[in-house]
């Protein structure tokens, strides 16, 4: 793939500072270090092809949009079962990671790994807005741009994602605290 018209310096300045954010998003969406590496590589190649369409401005949102598409294409190819419609009411049950026994729950809760497992178990549509908000510190407007949904939907998905975490069985220490207020 030769793209001699791409201004290399401009491209590097736009994309290289976003590699951490790109990898973090890919890592949380694919839930695998090796797959995230391939996805970021794919996203870089796409970004080179689409760079003509980038008019300057918010390079982070622009590149993360590409990374996100690369993630979903990868998931579609390799684990199609994971793509679930986020609007469906049933997915709230999906936040419960595959049938844990109470002992396992207690064991997991003893470690801080519980919280990342609970997030990793969120449906992708909720997981992505949560990661972009809490770990990348993106505004609602930026998230709306990356995920291509209205700002109101960003807000409701964040609310649902956080609600699922608060009710998640692997995080009952949070639940206990909230139950105590009755």
């Amino acid at each position, binding site marked *: *793939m030769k793209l001699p018209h791409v201004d*290399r310096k401009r491209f590097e300045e736009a994309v290289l500072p976003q*590699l951490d954010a790109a990898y973090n998003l890919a890592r*949380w969406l694919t839930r695998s270090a090796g797959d995230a590496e391939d996805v*970021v590589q794919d996203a870089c*190649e796409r970004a*080179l092809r689409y760079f003509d369409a980038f008019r300057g401005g918010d390079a982070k949102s622009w590149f993360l949009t590409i990374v996100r598409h690369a993630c979903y294409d990868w998931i579609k190819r390799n684990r199609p079962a994971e793509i679930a419609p986020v609007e469906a009411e049933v997915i709230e049950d999906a936040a419960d990671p595959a049938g844990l026994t109470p002992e396992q729950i207690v064991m997991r809760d003893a470690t801080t790994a519980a919280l990342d497992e609970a997030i990793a178990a969120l449906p992708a549509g909720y997981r992505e807005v949560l990661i972009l908000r809490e770990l990348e510190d993106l505004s*609602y407007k930026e998230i709306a741009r990356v995920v291509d949904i209205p700002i109101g939907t960003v807000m409701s998905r964040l609310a649902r994602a*956080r609600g699922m975490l608060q009710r998640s069985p692997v995080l009952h220490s949070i639940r206990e605290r909230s139950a105590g*207020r009755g």
Partner: protein
Amino acid sequence: MDCHETTALLQAYSDDELDPVRSAAMERHLIGCAECAARRDELAKLRARIRNEVPYYPAPQPVRARALAAIEAATAGPARPRRERWGWLTAGALAGSAATVFAWFIGTAALEWQATSDIVTEAVANHSRATLGNRLVDVASSDQHTVKPWLSARLDYSPPVRDFKEDGFPLVGGRLDYLDGRPVATLVYKYREHTIDVFMRPVDSGKPTALRRPTTLRGFNVAHGSAGGMECWAVSDVNMDVLTSLVQHLTSTAS
């Protein structure tokens, strides 16, 4: 604002996305309503836990290397802009009687630019070598009273060392590097998962440094600051606003 509305807008409030009018209305409601205040506290607790406990995955070295390789493979090289610059210079030299003065001016500016860009290049090279390898710090400590004497004992000057943990830039240690042919004190700060290297040295009174504007080199941002007879270059992959904010802290407290 009632409980129903408060519950609906609590997320936006917590995310700092509410307009000032509704934000103030919500604060008034939260003072009077224990149940909504408890909901706010739960949300704050959850968010604090996410930010403190959940890992951020910075791009590992192979990702960076593969990205650079992809760019290398796709682009024909950086030759074009340079040729344009020379063309412009040539036109300037041919422009008549002012050309000599003009060329002298450009020549001096270019020399100065060359000197600072060497320092910037070296600083970025030091930073990437340290972050890619495993020698991030020579002395690991968040205590300025440990880092400062360690550096002072190995240099012919004593760099000011301050921790800015409260401002989001915890000091993680110090390191010795070479810059401009001389040993230099490197202070290592963190910002979230990012590493920021600050190269600190006395201002060389003989040759004032030309770089005052922040610059970007190979994807790394570089910001310069000076105060109290010291000057510093901060290098990192964090965005420029964050980097200049650290430089402001450094220069406002340098003694």
